[in-house]
């Protein structure tokens, strides 16, 4: 059992690492300008400086995939960042004052936000502020806040009854100090796991939004939009859909495996059982 857990962690880590490396590399080098329209290269077959061929605009698929990785990470980081920045403090407050009115209020608001799923929020935000990457990311981020708040609250509840926190409270330490010194470090592992899983969900959400036309604006390369644009050529040039589809699936798989692997690795309870 241990061996397979690690395998998941390794494979997940490798896939995520590949996405990150590709995204970083795309800042310094891509074979071609990914948005340059070149009629002479329209639907060019792979080979000769175009490793994966070109799309109907003559844009290099490989370069687009590379820069698309950047978009993917950007979406994930901002969405997860918003969710964590709002959700973690709220969850910790709720967890540290489990019977107070504030805790009750936070969790009720949390339930309410939970009733607005990411896609619905993104469509609403898009309708008001205009569709685009940032709107989509904020919507996905806000919709993910409850997930972080719940995890942070549950983990905080556990930490609050441990001996060292009880000792710190007996010693008269104030709550903010306890939160920073004792709680946060101990719930960190659960939050990292949640971040990894939320990242995967954000990638899927961005793809779905791009498909509906509420995601990344053209011509910024995005895997979701590449997939959407390749639909009309699914019959004649299926590779145009294959590569972005594969990239999405591998990235999501990577983040999920990483999350699961980290959970098994970091959660002491699970480790004991196995």
């Amino acid at each position, binding site marked *: 059992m241990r061996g397979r857990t690690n395998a998941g962690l390794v494979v997940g880590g490798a896939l995520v690492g590949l996405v990150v490396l590709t995204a970083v590399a795309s800042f310094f080098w891509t074979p071609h300008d990914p*948005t*340059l*329209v070149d*009629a002479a290269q*329209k639907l060019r077959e792979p080979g000769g400086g175009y490793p994966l061929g070109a799309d*109907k*605009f*003559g844009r290099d698929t490989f370069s687009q995939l590379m820069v698309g990785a950047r978009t993917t990470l950007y979406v994930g980081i901002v969405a997860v960042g918003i969710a964590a920045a709002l959700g973690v403090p709220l969850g910790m407050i709720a967890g540290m004052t489990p019977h107070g009115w504030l805790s009750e209020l936070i969790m009720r608001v949390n339930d309410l936000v939970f009733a607005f799923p990411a896609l619905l929020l993104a469509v609403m935000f898009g*309708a008001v502020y*205009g*569709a*685009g990457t940032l709107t989509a990311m904020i919507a996905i981020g806000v919709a993910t806040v409850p997930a972080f708040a719940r995890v942070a609250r549950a983990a905080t509840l556990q930490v609050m009854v441990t001996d060292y926190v009880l000792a710190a409270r007996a010693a008269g330490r104030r709550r903010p100090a306890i939160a920073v010194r004792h709680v946060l470090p101990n719930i960190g592992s659960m939050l990292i796991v949640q971040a990894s899983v939320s990242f995967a969900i954000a990638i899927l959400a961005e793809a779905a939004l791009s498909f509906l*036309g509420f995601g990344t*604006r*053209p*011509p910024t390369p995005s895997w979701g939009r590449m997939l959407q644009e390749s*639909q*009309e*050529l*699914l*019959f*004649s040039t299926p590779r145009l859909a294959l590569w972005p589809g594969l990239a999405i699936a591998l990235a999501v798989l990577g983040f999920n495996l990483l999350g699961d692997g980290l959970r098994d690795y970091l959660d002491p309870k699970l480790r004991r059982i196995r």
Partner: protein
Amino acid sequence: MRRIGIWIAVGGLLLATAACGGDSGGSASGTPKAQSLAVGFVAEPANLDFTSTEGAAIPQALLVNVYEGLVKLDQAGEIVPLLAEKWEVSGDRKTYTFTLRDNVTFSSGAPFTADDVVFSLDRVKSDWKLKIKSQLDVVDKVEKKDDSTAVVTLKQPSNGFLYAMATRLGAMFSRTGVSDLANKPVGTGPYTLGSWRRGDSIQLDANPSYWGTKPPLSSITLKYFKDATAMNNALLTGGIDVISSVQAPESLQQFADPNRFEVIEGTTNGEVVLSMNNDRPPFNDKKARQAVRHAIDHKALLDTAWAGRGGLIGSMVPPTDPWYEDRTGDYPYDPARAKQLLGGKTYDVKMRIPNLPYAVASAQVVKSQLAQVGITAEIEPLEFPARWLDQVFTKGDYDLSIINHVEPRDMGIFADKSYYFGYDNPEFGKLLASADQGTEQEQTDDLKQAAKLLSDDAAADWLFLFPNLIVAKKGVTGLPENAISESFDFTALAKQ
């Protein structure tokens, strides 16, 4: 030709014919005539009242098919009789006397008489809410001479009047049939509204008491698709019989098998315009606009964005109009000249486009090509129609936009400086006014000059002429090859 109004349409989006799949027994048993057809369209009407709601989808479905006018446009773009048997024009070209057909009744059973002509045309002035109604401002009065004769008097001679009568403005309504235009259209046409499944389809049933040649089909279903691929798939799998307007031209090779499908490529009135805001910097400067025209490689744009289907034009006139001249040579692709015109300056501009396939595809090419000469365009797709209409069309808050102006003979929109182009050249307005009042030859000469002026001023750039691409199952006949009127004419549609 006065101002031809505004409505902006989705472009060829709207033209399809779909069979409702009710022919399940037909093909196998070799029945001579299928009873129904399903045609795939892109934009569903919001309601059925084209007197108060903008948009191409309503007249496309209803005009000629459900509502008829005194005259209509045939496939060659000629005005031919419909509910009027004939008409006479007075010597001063200000009085039109229409002789109406006998035995015409509305689908409600009420007879069609000169009273309905007076009612319908007066109603344009009193009740219509569309901007295009100004095309009939030239009408002074409409009178009934007897039951089958109606007389229209104009304020001044107008070449655009009869043409406008062939559009939805000339549709004949029953005096007792306008209580619920949004849901219950009452006309004299070969079809009547059968049922409407919102979000899905509209069924038109043959009108059993039609005055003319009875339509060959018992019903036609107009099926609406928001996704081009979904519409293609529906034809491939037999869900529909016709794609009224192909929105994914690269996919046409799916329909290459001549034993199964027929691809019809005709022409439209739809000029895909790269509009430039003449009202504010940087495109209030003629040189900047000219630079844009030189910076765009139109051939490459058409090849990549729309699979090379359609034609190139250099001004606001399609080749089917009598005053067409080839103006594609006015601004040849010349990035060096463009840079020179910009004087080495660079610009950041907003390109606010409708989220329609042709616009999104074209915008990416335009952006790439403008970047070569130092203009950075940020593409912002807006939901069509509402958001685009609000932000670009009404408020004029844009630098560049792309839209297919599908209305027939719509060069006049440039004469209105409050129009979203913000183009203001009094000379142009004078040419149009004189063309509308002049003789046929004067009209042609004036309009040729007007088109040249538009091009020279670089009032906008014309990316390409939208093609009329129809794909039908083999055996479907009577499809209109060219989409040059507001309606998708189902009159002759049949299936062998």
